[in-house]
Protein backbone atom coordinates (compact mmCIF):
# COMPACT_ATOMS: atom_id res chain seq x y z
CA UNK A 1 0.00 0.00 0.00
CA UNK A 2 1.22 3.45 -0.82
CA UNK A 3 2.48 5.81 1.81
CA UNK A 4 0.19 8.77 2.30
CA UNK A 5 2.34 11.86 1.80
CA UNK A 6 -0.60 14.14 2.53
CA UNK A 7 0.65 16.75 0.09
CA UNK A 8 -2.28 17.91 -1.98
CA UNK A 9 -1.35 18.32 -5.62
CA UNK A 10 -4.86 19.02 -6.90
CA UNK A 11 -7.79 20.76 -5.26
CA UNK A 12 -11.17 21.37 -6.83
CA UNK A 13 -13.52 23.49 -4.75
CA UNK A 14 -17.18 23.77 -5.72
CA UNK A 15 -16.32 23.52 -9.41
CA UNK A 16 -19.22 24.12 -11.74
CA UNK A 17 -19.22 23.85 -15.50
CA UNK A 18 -22.12 24.73 -17.77
CA UNK A 19 -22.55 24.83 -21.53
CA UNK A 20 -24.93 26.92 -23.60
CA UNK A 21 -26.48 30.29 -22.88
CA UNK A 22 -29.82 31.32 -21.47
CA UNK A 23 -30.74 32.85 -24.82
CA UNK A 24 -29.95 29.72 -26.86
CA UNK A 25 -32.62 27.21 -27.86
CA UNK A 26 -31.26 24.50 -25.56
CA UNK A 27 -30.64 26.89 -22.69
CA UNK A 28 -27.93 26.28 -20.12
CA UNK A 29 -26.94 22.71 -19.29
CA UNK A 30 -24.92 22.24 -16.13
CA UNK A 31 -22.39 19.41 -16.52
CA UNK A 32 -20.71 19.89 -13.13
CA UNK A 33 -22.80 21.19 -10.25
CA UNK A 34 -20.20 21.79 -7.57
CA UNK A 35 -17.40 19.23 -7.50
CA UNK A 36 -15.04 19.12 -4.51
CA UNK A 37 -12.03 16.89 -4.88
CA UNK A 38 -8.52 16.65 -3.46
CA UNK A 39 -5.73 14.48 -4.84
CA UNK A 40 -2.46 13.91 -3.05
CA UNK A 41 1.06 13.06 -4.06
CA UNK A 42 1.98 9.40 -3.85
CA UNK A 43 -1.67 8.39 -4.05
CA UNK A 44 -4.00 7.09 -6.71
CA UNK A 45 -7.22 9.07 -6.75
CA UNK A 46 -9.90 7.30 -8.74
CA UNK A 47 -13.00 9.01 -10.11
CA UNK A 48 -15.85 6.67 -10.98
CA UNK A 49 -19.40 7.25 -12.03
CA UNK A 50 -21.94 6.30 -14.67
CA UNK A 51 -21.68 7.61 -18.24
CA UNK A 52 -22.40 11.32 -18.35
CA UNK A 53 -21.65 11.81 -14.66
CA UNK A 54 -19.02 14.44 -15.47
CA UNK A 55 -15.77 12.48 -14.98
CA UNK A 56 -14.03 13.67 -18.14
CA UNK A 57 -15.32 17.23 -17.69
CA UNK A 58 -13.92 17.21 -14.17
CA UNK A 59 -10.55 16.12 -15.51
CA UNK A 60 -10.69 18.72 -18.30
CA UNK A 61 -11.29 21.49 -15.73
CA UNK A 62 -8.47 20.12 -13.58
CA UNK A 63 -6.11 20.01 -16.56
CA UNK A 64 -6.94 23.56 -17.65
CA UNK A 65 -8.55 22.50 -20.91
CA UNK A 66 -11.90 23.87 -19.74
CA UNK A 67 -12.55 26.97 -17.69
CA UNK A 68 -15.01 26.28 -14.86
CA UNK A 69 -18.12 28.46 -14.77
CA UNK A 70 -17.60 28.82 -11.02
CA UNK A 71 -15.43 27.46 -8.23
CA UNK A 72 -11.68 27.13 -8.12
CA UNK A 73 -9.06 24.66 -9.34
CA UNK A 74 -5.57 24.55 -7.87
CA UNK A 75 -3.18 22.29 -9.73
CA UNK A 76 0.20 22.12 -7.98
CA UNK A 77 -0.79 25.41 -6.39
CA UNK A 78 -1.69 27.21 -9.62
CA UNK A 79 -4.76 27.89 -11.74
CA UNK A 80 -4.26 25.45 -14.63
CA UNK A 81 -6.40 27.45 -17.07
CA UNK A 82 -4.01 30.41 -16.84
CA UNK A 83 -0.85 28.40 -16.26
CA UNK A 84 2.22 28.54 -18.42
CA UNK A 85 4.70 25.98 -19.64
CA UNK A 86 6.32 25.62 -16.21
CA UNK A 87 3.16 24.08 -14.76
CA UNK A 88 2.32 22.05 -17.86
CA UNK A 89 5.79 20.47 -17.74
CA UNK A 90 4.97 19.10 -14.28
CA UNK A 91 1.70 17.46 -15.34
CA UNK A 92 1.10 14.51 -17.65
CA UNK A 93 -2.21 13.95 -19.38
CA UNK A 94 -3.69 10.88 -21.02
CA UNK A 95 -6.94 11.81 -22.68
CA UNK A 96 -9.88 9.44 -23.01
CA UNK A 97 -9.59 9.34 -26.81
CA UNK A 98 -5.83 9.14 -26.67
CA UNK A 99 -5.03 12.40 -28.43
CA UNK A 100 -2.62 10.62 -30.73
CA UNK A 101 -1.81 11.77 -34.28
CA UNK A 102 -2.85 8.85 -36.44
CA UNK A 103 -0.21 9.03 -39.16
CA UNK A 104 2.74 9.34 -36.80
CA UNK A 105 4.84 6.48 -35.44
CA UNK A 106 5.04 6.13 -31.64
CA UNK A 107 8.81 6.68 -31.60
CA UNK A 108 8.46 9.92 -33.58
CA UNK A 109 5.70 11.20 -31.30
CA UNK A 110 7.42 10.28 -28.04
CA UNK A 111 10.77 11.66 -29.20
CA UNK A 112 9.05 14.90 -30.18
CA UNK A 113 7.16 15.31 -26.89
CA UNK A 114 10.37 14.52 -24.98
CA UNK A 115 12.00 17.49 -26.73
CA UNK A 116 9.41 19.79 -25.16
CA UNK A 117 10.83 18.90 -21.71
CA UNK A 118 14.21 19.60 -20.21
CA UNK A 119 14.53 16.34 -18.26
CA UNK A 120 12.28 13.78 -19.93
CA UNK A 121 11.79 10.19 -18.83
CA UNK A 122 14.35 8.07 -20.71
CA UNK A 123 12.45 6.78 -23.72
CA UNK A 124 13.96 3.30 -23.69
CA UNK A 125 12.96 2.79 -20.04
CA UNK A 126 9.38 3.78 -20.81
CA UNK A 127 9.41 1.51 -23.86
CA UNK A 128 10.52 -1.41 -21.67
CA UNK A 129 8.03 -0.75 -18.91
CA UNK A 130 5.10 -0.55 -21.33
CA UNK A 131 6.42 -3.15 -23.77
CA UNK A 132 6.21 -0.79 -26.75
CA UNK A 133 9.24 -1.99 -28.68
CA UNK A 134 7.35 -4.26 -31.10
CA UNK A 135 5.33 -1.38 -32.58
CA UNK A 136 7.44 1.74 -32.03
CA UNK A 137 7.95 2.04 -35.79
CA UNK A 138 4.33 1.39 -36.83
CA UNK A 139 1.96 4.23 -37.68
CA UNK A 140 -0.44 4.79 -34.79
CA UNK A 141 -3.52 4.29 -36.98
CA UNK A 142 -2.38 0.69 -37.60
CA UNK A 143 -2.11 -0.16 -33.88
CA UNK A 144 -4.71 -2.05 -31.88
CA UNK A 145 -6.78 -0.21 -29.29
CA UNK A 146 -4.66 -1.60 -26.46
CA UNK A 147 -1.39 -0.64 -28.16
CA UNK A 148 -2.69 2.91 -28.69
CA UNK A 149 -3.61 3.08 -25.01
CA UNK A 150 -0.08 2.18 -24.01
CA UNK A 151 1.39 4.77 -26.38
CA UNK A 152 -0.98 7.41 -24.95
CA UNK A 153 0.13 6.45 -21.45
CA UNK A 154 3.77 6.74 -22.49
CA UNK A 155 3.02 10.19 -24.01
CA UNK A 156 1.53 11.26 -20.68
CA UNK A 157 4.62 10.13 -18.77
CA UNK A 158 7.45 11.10 -21.12
CA UNK A 159 7.89 14.46 -19.39
CA UNK A 160 8.50 12.84 -15.95
CA UNK A 161 5.42 14.54 -14.45
CA UNK A 162 4.76 15.11 -10.76
CA UNK A 163 1.05 14.55 -11.31
CA UNK A 164 -0.54 12.49 -14.03
CA UNK A 165 -4.15 12.40 -15.25
CA UNK A 166 -5.22 9.12 -16.78
CA UNK A 167 -8.66 9.00 -18.38
CA UNK A 168 -9.64 5.33 -18.71
CA UNK A 169 -6.04 4.06 -18.86
CA UNK A 170 -6.92 0.38 -19.08
CA UNK A 171 -9.80 0.60 -21.58
CA UNK A 172 -9.31 -1.97 -24.32
CA UNK A 173 -6.27 -3.61 -22.73
CA UNK A 174 -5.78 -7.36 -22.58
CA UNK A 175 -4.98 -8.85 -19.14
CA UNK A 176 -1.20 -8.83 -19.69
CA UNK A 177 -1.19 -5.21 -20.84
CA UNK A 178 -3.47 -4.25 -17.97
CA UNK A 179 -1.00 -5.77 -15.53
CA UNK A 180 1.82 -3.75 -17.14
CA UNK A 181 -0.20 -0.59 -16.65
CA UNK A 182 -1.04 -1.52 -13.04
CA UNK A 183 2.63 -2.18 -12.30
CA UNK A 184 3.58 1.17 -13.79
CA UNK A 185 0.92 2.96 -11.75
CA UNK A 186 2.24 1.26 -8.62
CA UNK A 187 5.73 2.41 -9.54
CA UNK A 188 4.51 6.00 -10.06
CA UNK A 189 2.72 5.96 -6.72
CA UNK A 190 5.74 4.66 -4.84
CA UNK A 191 7.83 7.37 -6.52
CA UNK A 192 5.61 9.99 -4.93
CA UNK A 193 3.79 10.96 -8.12
CA UNK A 194 0.13 11.90 -7.81
CA UNK A 195 -2.21 9.92 -10.06
CA UNK A 196 -5.76 10.91 -10.88
CA UNK A 197 -7.60 8.42 -13.02
CA UNK A 198 -11.08 7.59 -14.20
CA UNK A 199 -12.27 4.10 -14.95
CA UNK A 200 -15.38 2.07 -15.57
CA UNK A 201 -13.68 -1.04 -14.20
CA UNK A 202 -14.64 -1.08 -10.55
CA UNK A 203 -12.47 -4.05 -9.71
CA UNK A 204 -9.53 -2.05 -11.07
CA UNK A 205 -10.57 0.97 -9.03
CA UNK A 206 -10.77 -1.15 -5.89
CA UNK A 207 -7.33 -2.59 -6.58
CA UNK A 208 -5.60 0.71 -7.35
CA UNK A 209 -7.33 3.42 -5.39
CA UNK A 210 -6.09 5.20 -2.31
CA UNK A 211 -9.05 7.56 -2.59
CA UNK A 212 -12.26 7.15 -4.54
CA UNK A 213 -14.70 9.84 -5.68
CA UNK A 214 -18.07 8.70 -7.01
CA UNK A 215 -19.66 11.22 -9.34
CA UNK A 216 -23.30 11.30 -10.29
CA UNK A 217 -25.08 14.04 -12.22
CA UNK A 218 -22.13 16.39 -11.87
CA UNK A 219 -21.61 16.15 -8.13
CA UNK A 220 -19.52 13.95 -5.84
CA UNK A 221 -22.08 11.74 -4.13
CA UNK A 222 -19.60 9.82 -2.03
CA UNK A 223 -15.86 9.76 -1.45
CA UNK A 224 -13.30 8.15 0.80
CA UNK A 225 -10.91 5.26 0.83
CA UNK A 226 -12.15 1.91 -0.48
CA UNK A 227 -12.37 0.68 3.11
CA UNK A 228 -14.43 3.65 4.17
CA UNK A 229 -16.79 3.29 1.24
CA UNK A 230 -17.32 -0.44 1.55
CA UNK A 231 -17.44 -0.45 5.33
CA UNK A 232 -14.66 -3.04 5.58
CA UNK A 233 -12.08 -0.81 7.15
CA UNK A 234 -11.25 -0.19 10.75
CA UNK A 235 -13.39 2.91 10.95
CA UNK A 236 -16.36 2.26 8.73
CA UNK A 237 -18.87 5.00 8.02
CA UNK A 238 -22.10 4.27 9.75
CA UNK A 239 -24.12 4.39 6.53
CA UNK A 240 -21.83 1.92 4.80
CA UNK A 241 -21.11 -0.49 7.66
CA UNK A 242 -22.69 -3.24 5.66
CA UNK A 243 -22.09 -6.63 4.19
CA UNK A 244 -23.39 -8.26 1.09
CA UNK A 245 -25.66 -11.24 1.66
CA UNK A 246 -25.89 -14.00 -0.91
CA UNK A 247 -28.47 -16.75 -1.03
CA UNK A 248 -29.19 -19.63 -3.35
CA UNK A 249 -32.85 -19.77 -4.33
CA UNK A 250 -34.45 -23.24 -4.52
CA UNK A 251 -36.46 -22.10 -7.56
CA UNK A 252 -36.80 -19.26 -10.05
CA UNK A 253 -38.20 -16.07 -8.55
CA UNK A 254 -41.33 -14.54 -10.02
CA UNK A 255 -41.59 -10.89 -11.02
CA UNK A 256 -44.07 -10.30 -8.18
CA UNK A 257 -41.66 -11.79 -5.66
CA UNK A 258 -38.80 -9.64 -6.93
CA UNK A 259 -40.95 -6.53 -6.69
CA UNK A 260 -42.01 -7.53 -3.18
CA UNK A 261 -38.39 -7.97 -1.99
CA UNK A 262 -37.40 -5.44 0.70
CA UNK A 263 -34.16 -4.61 -1.13
CA UNK A 264 -33.08 -4.63 -4.77
CA UNK A 265 -31.67 -8.05 -5.61
CA UNK A 266 -28.72 -8.70 -7.91
CA UNK A 267 -28.65 -11.94 -9.87
CA UNK A 268 -25.15 -13.44 -9.46
CA UNK A 269 -25.90 -16.46 -11.66
CA UNK A 270 -26.35 -16.52 -15.40
CA UNK A 271 -30.13 -17.13 -15.24
CA UNK A 272 -33.07 -16.89 -12.87
CA UNK A 273 -33.65 -20.59 -12.19
CA UNK A 274 -33.51 -23.16 -9.41
CA UNK A 275 -30.16 -22.90 -7.60
CA UNK A 276 -29.51 -19.37 -8.87
CA UNK A 277 -27.49 -17.17 -6.52
CA UNK A 278 -28.88 -13.76 -5.57
CA UNK A 279 -27.08 -10.91 -3.85
CA UNK A 280 -28.46 -8.30 -1.46
CA UNK A 281 -25.93 -5.44 -1.52
CA UNK A 282 -26.38 -3.70 1.81
CA UNK A 283 -27.25 -5.66 4.92
CA UNK A 284 -26.33 -3.24 7.67
CA UNK A 285 -28.33 -4.37 10.68
CA UNK A 286 -30.29 -7.28 12.19
CA UNK A 287 -33.45 -5.45 11.13
CA UNK A 288 -32.39 -5.80 7.51
CA UNK A 289 -31.98 -9.53 8.03
CA UNK A 290 -35.40 -9.74 9.65
CA UNK A 291 -37.00 -7.95 6.70
CA UNK A 292 -35.33 -10.36 4.34
CA UNK A 293 -36.41 -13.41 6.35
CA UNK A 294 -40.00 -12.14 6.37
CA UNK A 295 -39.90 -11.80 2.59
CA UNK A 296 -38.60 -15.40 2.30
CA UNK A 297 -41.45 -16.49 4.53
CA UNK A 298 -44.07 -14.58 2.44
CA UNK A 299 -42.65 -16.09 -0.74
CA UNK A 300 -42.38 -19.60 0.66
CA UNK A 301 -38.65 -19.64 0.02
CA UNK A 302 -36.09 -21.45 2.09
CA UNK A 303 -32.67 -20.62 0.66
CA UNK A 304 -30.46 -23.63 0.05
CA UNK A 305 -27.43 -21.61 1.07
CA UNK A 306 -26.84 -18.26 2.77
CA UNK A 307 -23.51 -16.47 3.04
CA UNK A 308 -22.07 -13.03 3.75
CA UNK A 309 -19.50 -11.45 1.50
CA UNK A 310 -17.45 -8.34 1.95
CA UNK A 311 -19.03 -5.47 0.09
CA UNK A 312 -17.11 -4.31 -2.92
CA UNK A 313 -16.77 -0.95 -4.55
CA UNK A 314 -19.12 -2.25 -7.21
CA UNK A 315 -21.85 -2.73 -4.58
CA UNK A 316 -21.35 0.84 -3.39
CA UNK A 317 -21.35 2.10 -6.96
CA UNK A 318 -24.67 0.39 -7.74
CA UNK A 319 -26.12 1.65 -4.52
CA UNK A 320 -25.35 5.29 -5.21
CA UNK A 321 -25.83 5.27 -8.97
CA UNK A 322 -29.21 3.53 -9.08
CA UNK A 323 -32.05 6.01 -9.65
Amino acid at each position, binding site marked *: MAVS*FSVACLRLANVRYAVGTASSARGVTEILSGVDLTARRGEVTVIIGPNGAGKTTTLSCAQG*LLRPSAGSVQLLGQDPYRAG*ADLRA*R*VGVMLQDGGLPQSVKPRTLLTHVAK*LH*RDPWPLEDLVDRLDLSAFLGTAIRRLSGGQKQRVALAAALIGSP*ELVFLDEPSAGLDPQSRQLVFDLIDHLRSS*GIGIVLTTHLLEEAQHLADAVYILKDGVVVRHGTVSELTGIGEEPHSHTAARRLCFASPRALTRTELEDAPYPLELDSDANRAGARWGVPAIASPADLTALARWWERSGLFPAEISFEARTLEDVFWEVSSP
Partner: protein
Amino acid sequence: MNQPEAPTLPRSRPAAAHRRVLAHGLYEARLTLRNGEQLLVSLILPLLVLIGLHRAHAVTDIVPGIDTIAPGVLSLAVMASAFAGAAIATGFERQYGVLAYLATTPLGATGLILGKSLAVLCVIAVQVLVLGSAGFFLGWSPEPLGIIWMFGVVIMGAATFTALGLLLAGTVRAEATLALANVAWVLMGAAGGAVLPLEHDGAGALLLALPSAALGEAVRGATMEGRLAVVPILILAAWALAAILAARKWFTWK
Protein backbone atom coordinates in the same frame (compact mmCIF):
# COMPACT_ATOMS: atom_id res chain seq x y z
CA MET B 1 1.61 10.93 14.23
CA ASN B 2 4.18 12.50 11.98
CA GLN B 3 3.47 12.27 8.29
CA PRO B 4 6.18 10.49 6.35
CA GLU B 5 8.50 12.70 4.37
CA ALA B 6 7.46 13.23 0.80
CA PRO B 7 10.15 11.91 -1.50
CA THR B 8 12.08 14.60 -3.25
CA LEU B 9 10.82 14.61 -6.79
CA PRO B 10 12.97 16.47 -9.26
CA ARG B 11 10.82 19.31 -10.56
CA SER B 12 9.94 18.67 -14.18
CA ARG B 13 10.93 21.61 -16.32
CA PRO B 14 9.97 22.66 -19.84
CA ALA B 15 12.51 23.10 -22.60
CA ALA B 16 13.22 26.72 -23.50
CA ALA B 17 10.34 28.39 -25.37
CA HIS B 18 12.22 28.86 -28.64
CA ARG B 19 13.34 25.22 -28.58
CA ARG B 20 9.77 24.04 -28.10
CA VAL B 21 8.47 26.10 -31.00
CA LEU B 22 11.39 25.13 -33.23
CA ALA B 23 10.97 21.44 -32.36
CA HIS B 24 7.25 21.53 -33.11
CA GLY B 25 7.69 23.53 -36.32
CA LEU B 26 10.23 21.07 -37.69
CA TYR B 27 8.15 18.10 -36.51
CA GLU B 28 5.06 19.36 -38.33
CA ALA B 29 7.01 20.39 -41.42
CA ARG B 30 8.52 16.90 -41.69
CA LEU B 31 5.09 15.32 -41.33
CA THR B 32 3.66 17.59 -44.02
CA LEU B 33 6.47 17.02 -46.48
CA ARG B 34 6.20 13.24 -45.99
CA ASN B 35 2.44 13.26 -46.53
CA GLY B 36 1.61 12.38 -50.14
CA GLU B 37 -1.78 14.10 -50.20
CA GLN B 38 -0.35 17.29 -48.73
CA LEU B 39 2.47 17.27 -51.26
CA LEU B 40 -0.02 16.82 -54.08
CA VAL B 41 -2.02 19.88 -53.03
CA SER B 42 0.95 22.00 -51.93
CA LEU B 43 3.42 21.30 -54.68
CA ILE B 44 2.31 19.01 -57.50
CA LEU B 45 -0.98 20.74 -58.36
CA PRO B 46 0.53 24.27 -58.34
CA LEU B 47 3.38 22.98 -60.51
CA LEU B 48 0.87 21.48 -62.97
CA VAL B 49 -1.08 24.77 -63.01
CA LEU B 50 2.14 26.70 -63.72
CA ILE B 51 3.14 24.44 -66.59
CA GLY B 52 -0.42 24.17 -67.92
CA LEU B 53 -1.01 27.93 -68.03
CA HIS B 54 2.43 28.52 -69.57
CA ARG B 55 1.56 26.06 -72.33
CA ALA B 56 -1.86 27.67 -72.74
CA HIS B 57 -0.24 31.10 -73.14
CA ALA B 58 1.66 29.72 -76.08
CA VAL B 59 -1.69 28.91 -77.72
CA THR B 60 -3.78 31.95 -76.77
CA ASP B 61 -3.13 35.46 -75.46
CA ILE B 62 -6.20 35.19 -73.24
CA VAL B 63 -3.89 33.50 -70.77
CA PRO B 64 -1.22 35.94 -69.54
CA GLY B 65 2.48 35.27 -69.71
CA ILE B 66 4.79 33.65 -67.21
CA ASP B 67 5.56 36.93 -65.39
CA THR B 68 1.90 37.14 -64.39
CA ILE B 69 1.31 33.43 -63.92
CA ALA B 70 4.34 32.62 -61.74
CA PRO B 71 3.47 34.99 -58.86
CA GLY B 72 -0.17 33.87 -59.15
CA VAL B 73 0.81 30.23 -58.81
CA LEU B 74 3.02 31.10 -55.84
CA SER B 75 -0.05 32.68 -54.23
CA LEU B 76 -2.03 29.53 -54.97
CA ALA B 77 0.71 27.44 -53.36
CA VAL B 78 0.80 29.65 -50.26
CA MET B 79 -2.98 29.22 -49.90
CA ALA B 80 -2.57 25.45 -50.35
CA SER B 81 -0.14 25.00 -47.49
CA ALA B 82 -1.17 27.83 -45.16
CA PHE B 83 -4.93 27.47 -45.61
CA ALA B 84 -6.07 24.13 -47.04
CA GLY B 85 -3.19 21.99 -45.73
CA ALA B 86 -3.07 23.57 -42.28
CA ALA B 87 -6.85 23.57 -41.90
CA ILE B 88 -7.31 19.92 -42.89
CA ALA B 89 -4.41 18.65 -40.78
CA THR B 90 -5.51 20.71 -37.78
CA GLY B 91 -9.15 19.69 -38.21
CA PHE B 92 -8.29 16.01 -37.97
CA GLU B 93 -5.85 16.64 -35.11
CA ARG B 94 -8.69 18.35 -33.29
CA GLN B 95 -11.05 15.44 -34.00
CA TYR B 96 -8.53 12.91 -32.65
CA GLY B 97 -7.80 15.00 -29.55
CA VAL B 98 -4.23 15.74 -30.63
CA LEU B 99 -4.69 19.50 -30.18
CA ALA B 100 -6.09 18.99 -26.69
CA TYR B 101 -3.19 16.70 -25.78
CA LEU B 102 -0.56 19.10 -27.13
CA ALA B 103 -2.25 21.99 -25.32
CA THR B 104 -1.54 20.15 -22.04
CA THR B 105 2.17 19.77 -22.83
CA PRO B 106 4.71 22.58 -22.30
CA LEU B 107 4.06 23.56 -25.91
CA GLY B 108 0.65 24.98 -24.94
CA ALA B 109 -1.76 26.82 -27.20
CA THR B 110 0.61 29.63 -28.13
CA GLY B 111 3.51 27.32 -28.86
CA LEU B 112 1.23 25.10 -30.91
CA ILE B 113 0.11 27.99 -33.11
CA LEU B 114 3.65 29.37 -33.47
CA GLY B 115 4.96 25.89 -34.25
CA LYS B 116 2.28 25.38 -36.89
CA SER B 117 3.10 28.76 -38.41
CA LEU B 118 6.78 27.85 -38.52
CA ALA B 119 5.92 24.55 -40.20
CA VAL B 120 3.84 26.40 -42.80
CA LEU B 121 6.76 28.75 -43.48
CA CYS B 122 9.11 25.78 -43.90
CA VAL B 123 6.76 24.22 -46.44
CA ILE B 124 6.34 27.55 -48.22
CA ALA B 125 10.13 27.87 -48.44
CA VAL B 126 10.20 24.54 -50.27
CA GLN B 127 7.31 25.68 -52.49
CA VAL B 128 9.03 28.96 -53.39
CA LEU B 129 12.23 27.09 -54.17
CA VAL B 130 10.57 24.48 -56.39
CA LEU B 131 7.97 26.71 -58.08
CA GLY B 132 10.40 29.63 -58.39
CA SER B 133 12.97 27.37 -60.04
CA ALA B 134 10.34 26.00 -62.40
CA GLY B 135 9.23 29.57 -63.18
CA PHE B 136 12.79 30.67 -63.94
CA PHE B 137 13.16 27.63 -66.18
CA LEU B 138 10.03 28.70 -68.05
CA GLY B 139 11.29 32.25 -68.48
CA TRP B 140 10.02 34.12 -65.41
CA SER B 141 12.00 37.31 -64.76
CA PRO B 142 10.85 39.04 -61.58
CA GLU B 143 12.06 42.49 -60.54
CA PRO B 144 15.19 41.87 -58.40
CA LEU B 145 14.14 44.34 -55.68
CA GLY B 146 10.61 42.98 -55.80
CA ILE B 147 11.81 39.54 -54.73
CA ILE B 148 12.52 40.97 -51.27
CA TRP B 149 9.02 42.47 -51.14
CA MET B 150 7.67 39.16 -52.38
CA PHE B 151 9.10 37.30 -49.38
CA GLY B 152 7.50 39.82 -47.02
CA VAL B 153 4.15 39.54 -48.79
CA VAL B 154 4.32 35.74 -48.76
CA ILE B 155 4.92 35.75 -45.00
CA MET B 156 1.99 38.14 -44.52
CA GLY B 157 -0.19 35.95 -46.72
CA ALA B 158 0.91 32.83 -44.86
CA ALA B 159 -0.07 34.43 -41.54
CA THR B 160 -3.48 35.48 -42.89
CA PHE B 161 -4.33 32.14 -44.46
CA THR B 162 -3.00 30.15 -41.49
CA ALA B 163 -5.27 32.19 -39.22
CA LEU B 164 -8.22 31.54 -41.55
CA GLY B 165 -7.35 27.85 -41.77
CA LEU B 166 -7.09 27.44 -38.00
CA LEU B 167 -10.37 29.32 -37.55
CA LEU B 168 -12.09 26.86 -39.88
CA ALA B 169 -10.42 23.81 -38.29
CA GLY B 170 -11.23 24.92 -34.77
CA THR B 171 -14.90 25.60 -35.30
CA VAL B 172 -16.37 22.88 -37.55
CA ARG B 173 -16.05 19.09 -37.82
CA ALA B 174 -12.97 17.63 -39.52
CA GLU B 175 -14.96 16.28 -42.46
CA ALA B 176 -16.58 19.68 -43.03
CA THR B 177 -13.16 21.33 -42.76
CA LEU B 178 -11.83 18.95 -45.40
CA ALA B 179 -14.65 19.78 -47.81
CA LEU B 180 -14.80 23.52 -47.15
CA ALA B 181 -11.04 24.05 -47.25
CA ASN B 182 -10.66 22.24 -50.57
CA VAL B 183 -13.64 23.98 -52.18
CA ALA B 184 -12.54 27.40 -50.91
CA TRP B 185 -8.98 26.80 -52.13
CA VAL B 186 -10.16 25.79 -55.61
CA LEU B 187 -12.60 28.73 -55.86
CA MET B 188 -10.09 31.28 -54.56
CA GLY B 189 -7.46 29.91 -56.89
CA ALA B 190 -9.66 29.70 -59.97
CA ALA B 191 -11.88 32.75 -59.58
CA GLY B 192 -10.67 34.59 -56.49
CA GLY B 193 -7.89 36.61 -58.07
CA ALA B 194 -4.99 34.54 -56.78
CA VAL B 195 -3.68 32.97 -60.00
CA LEU B 196 -5.06 35.43 -62.55
CA PRO B 197 -5.70 39.13 -61.89
CA LEU B 198 -9.32 40.21 -61.57
CA GLU B 199 -11.01 42.95 -63.54
CA HIS B 200 -11.00 46.06 -61.40
CA ASP B 201 -14.39 47.35 -62.55
CA GLY B 202 -17.87 46.59 -61.22
CA ALA B 203 -18.17 43.34 -59.30
CA GLY B 204 -14.49 42.68 -59.85
CA ALA B 205 -13.65 45.57 -57.54
CA LEU B 206 -15.56 43.88 -54.70
CA LEU B 207 -13.72 40.62 -55.28
CA LEU B 208 -10.45 42.47 -54.76
CA ALA B 209 -11.33 42.49 -51.06
CA LEU B 210 -10.95 38.70 -51.00
CA PRO B 211 -7.77 37.58 -49.24
CA SER B 212 -6.86 35.49 -52.29
CA ALA B 213 -7.10 38.50 -54.60
CA ALA B 214 -5.15 40.63 -52.14
CA LEU B 215 -2.37 38.06 -51.93
CA GLY B 216 -2.26 37.65 -55.72
CA GLU B 217 -2.18 41.40 -56.28
CA ALA B 218 0.51 41.95 -53.66
CA VAL B 219 2.79 39.19 -55.00
CA ARG B 220 2.28 40.38 -58.60
CA GLY B 221 2.92 43.98 -57.54
CA ALA B 222 6.20 42.94 -55.96
CA THR B 223 7.55 40.68 -58.68
CA MET B 224 6.21 42.51 -61.76
CA GLU B 225 6.68 46.13 -60.67
CA GLY B 226 9.10 45.88 -57.76
CA ARG B 227 6.70 47.73 -55.43
CA LEU B 228 4.97 46.99 -52.17
CA ALA B 229 1.21 47.02 -52.85
CA VAL B 230 -0.06 48.74 -49.72
CA VAL B 231 -3.82 48.30 -50.17
CA PRO B 232 -3.67 44.52 -50.72
CA ILE B 233 -1.35 44.24 -47.71
CA LEU B 234 -3.87 46.15 -45.58
CA ILE B 235 -6.64 43.87 -46.83
CA LEU B 236 -4.59 40.81 -45.84
CA ALA B 237 -3.91 42.34 -42.42
CA ALA B 238 -7.61 43.02 -41.92
CA TRP B 239 -8.48 39.40 -42.79
CA ALA B 240 -5.77 38.15 -40.43
CA LEU B 241 -7.03 40.33 -37.60
CA ALA B 242 -10.65 39.26 -38.18
CA ALA B 243 -9.66 35.57 -38.27
CA ILE B 244 -7.59 35.84 -35.09
CA LEU B 245 -10.39 37.63 -33.23
CA ALA B 246 -12.96 35.10 -34.45
CA ALA B 247 -10.67 32.19 -33.50
CA ARG B 248 -10.20 33.62 -30.01
CA LYS B 249 -13.97 33.63 -29.61
CA TRP B 250 -15.03 30.40 -31.28
CA PHE B 251 -12.00 28.10 -31.56
CA THR B 252 -12.26 24.99 -29.39
CA TRP B 253 -9.53 22.41 -28.81
CA LYS B 254 -11.84 19.41 -29.19
